[in-house]
């Protein structure tokens, strides 16, 4: 099997995540799509690490996971705060800058 198949899979997953971020309107689902994109890049990192034969890619992937965890915590806290004040988790309803 050609090892670049993993890279193709990673590109496909990244694309699906990108579509989700732009199309979906529930803030939590948008967040999940961001997670999917981060995971896709992690797969690419791990594959490159194997291609080049050193562990730098895996270290980068590890750091991505840590940053993703931070992002999830802060993002979900923001969603909860917005929901508390406006009773909605739709990204369309939070057009604060318009008014």
């Amino acid at each position, binding site marked *: 099997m050609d*090892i670049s198949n993993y890279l193709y899979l990673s590109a496909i997953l990244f694309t699906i995540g990108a579509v989700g971020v732009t199309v979906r309107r529930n803030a939590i689902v948008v967040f*999940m799509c961001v997670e999917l994109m981060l995971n896709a890049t992690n797969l690419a990192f791990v594959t490159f690490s194997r291609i080049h034969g050193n562990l730098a890619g895996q270290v980068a992937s590890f750091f991505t996971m840590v940053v993703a965890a931070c992002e999830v915590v802060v993002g979900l806290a923001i969603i909860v705060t917005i929901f508390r004040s406006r009773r909605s988790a739709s990204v369309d309803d939070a057009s604060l800058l318009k008014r």
Partner: protein
Amino acid sequence: MLNLALEVGRTQTPEAILFWILGPIAVLCALGMLISAKAVHSALLLAWVMITLAIFYIAQDALFLGIVQVVVYTGAVMMLFLFILMLVVVDSADSLVETIKGQRTTSIVAAVGVGGLLTSLIGRATIGHTEVGLALANVNGNVQGLAEELFTKYVWAFEVVSALLITAALGAMVLAQSQNIKSRTAQRDRSIARFRSGSLAETAGLPSSGVYARHNAVDVPALLPDGSAAPTSISRTLEARGDIIKSDVFELEASEVEEN
């Protein structure tokens, strides 16, 4: 035994079989996450994608990352997502109406373009088709190798990341702390709001749910004087979940009425 299993998994054919079974599953789950209307289904499908990715990591000699993927992503992050879903938006089905005209088509076309660009780049690239393999880098074990990199070359990044984690934890605590954004609504405020709502029909409060000879619970609507069901007498959450019994189930047949 484990070493033997890893040895077998690394040969060409088993890995190809693994890839061609789990790869399509991952893509299908991701697509399902994209199109499912309920956020809970999306979360479960995303958990599947993450588990398949963890298996791919382990198949590619990244044992530590595979385990971390399961523990951190499918364990902690997805549970956090489900927790917030339960807390915030149980009945939030996405509305499928476009607010910006042509946004959906534009974004799908753009994303397919990006995907095509990426795949064609991977196809044309000269590197990425042969592998050096991690046998040499993992000679002391994957965890030991990663630790050596982390605590020598990347120790500064590691420290910065720890500062980031603490900041994120503090930020989440500050954000989630409930300062009262609006003043607390008391009985008096609610009463005033009812009178100012425009119609006086609900000033005495909403009707309670129906009481029938064979059923007395909150999932049946009360009857209006003309015999039709009163929609305001049941909770909106029950309605969204579809947990409502129609009142005409309890209606008596004409023959039963005569006997009585």
